[in-house]
């Protein structure tokens, strides 16, 4: 089923269009993808380390707004460049095991961030100081976040080495 989807993606207008863009196109799309990941993971790393207890002198509410915004922008940039990059020769990746690690890891990371943002602790952090069990809830989310995103990035990078 995944192989069918990849073959369809390669033959799709997006695949045809991306392949027509000239000899530098792949390198440039790849660059945009990296910049997206830099924004996404740089912001996530900063926020997650704060949630895990580093830099306590920086108020969490002051850090959470810019990092969450930057991570969201980075995620959109990474997805918008990642799909055409895959579409160029999608069929070539049908037997690539790292693809099967990367996308589930991204899905888990998104579920984790969704649950974290729904938590009472997250909703409270802008208005008042958190109590210990709330800090532990956010620290757990931060640990899972780092594990899932690092897995996604590592397996993504390894796709080209398979």
């Amino acid at each position: 089923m995944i192989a069918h989807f990849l073959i369809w993606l390669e033959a799709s207008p997006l695949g045809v269009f991306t392949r027509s863009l000239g000899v530098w196109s792949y390198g440039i799309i790849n660059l945009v993808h990296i910049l997206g990941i830099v924004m996404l993971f740089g912001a996530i790393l900063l926020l997650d380390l704060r949630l895990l207890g580093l830099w306590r002198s920086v108020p969490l509410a002051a850090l959470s707004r810019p990092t969450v915004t930057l991570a969201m922008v980075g995620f959109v940039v990474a997805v918008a460049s990642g799909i055409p990059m895959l579409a160029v020769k999608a069929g070539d990746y049908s037997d690539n095991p790292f693809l099967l690690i990367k996308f589930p890891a991204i899905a888990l990371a998104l579920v984790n961030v969704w649950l974290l943002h729904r938590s009472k602790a997250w909703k409270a952090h802008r208005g008042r100081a958190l109590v210990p069990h709330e800090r532990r809830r956010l620290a757990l989310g931060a640990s899972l976040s780092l594990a899932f995103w690092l897995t996604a990035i590592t397996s993504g990078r390894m796709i080209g080495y398979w």
Partner: protein
Amino acid sequence: MRHHPAYFGAAALLLATSATVSPASAHHGWAGQEEQVTALTGTVVEGVSMSGPHATMKIKSGNDIWDLTLAPPARAARAGLKEGLIPVGATVTVRGNRNSDRGRHEMKTIYIKQGNAEYHVYPDRE
């Protein structure tokens, strides 16, 4: 400015890691290839594609279909290659480093010759 010893430790670790990556293995294309150069003659099954991380083509040699991995597209273009230049069915002779897994018919291609036309994709490896 106050320097924490952990920062120096992390910096030293990063330097050590980058120093152990040799130029040969730094480029993922060549790490899994045989050292010696192999020559192949065959007919083109799929012409040169200039999209993706590397230019590619497919040839049939004997009963085997070979995946030829060329340079990144911009470098392949500098070597004179273009899509459609070598037609399907043409006879070509290629040299390159074949995959060290002998079951895989894949070659990182250094040189292509079709008739009188020669394409030196990686002259420094010849």
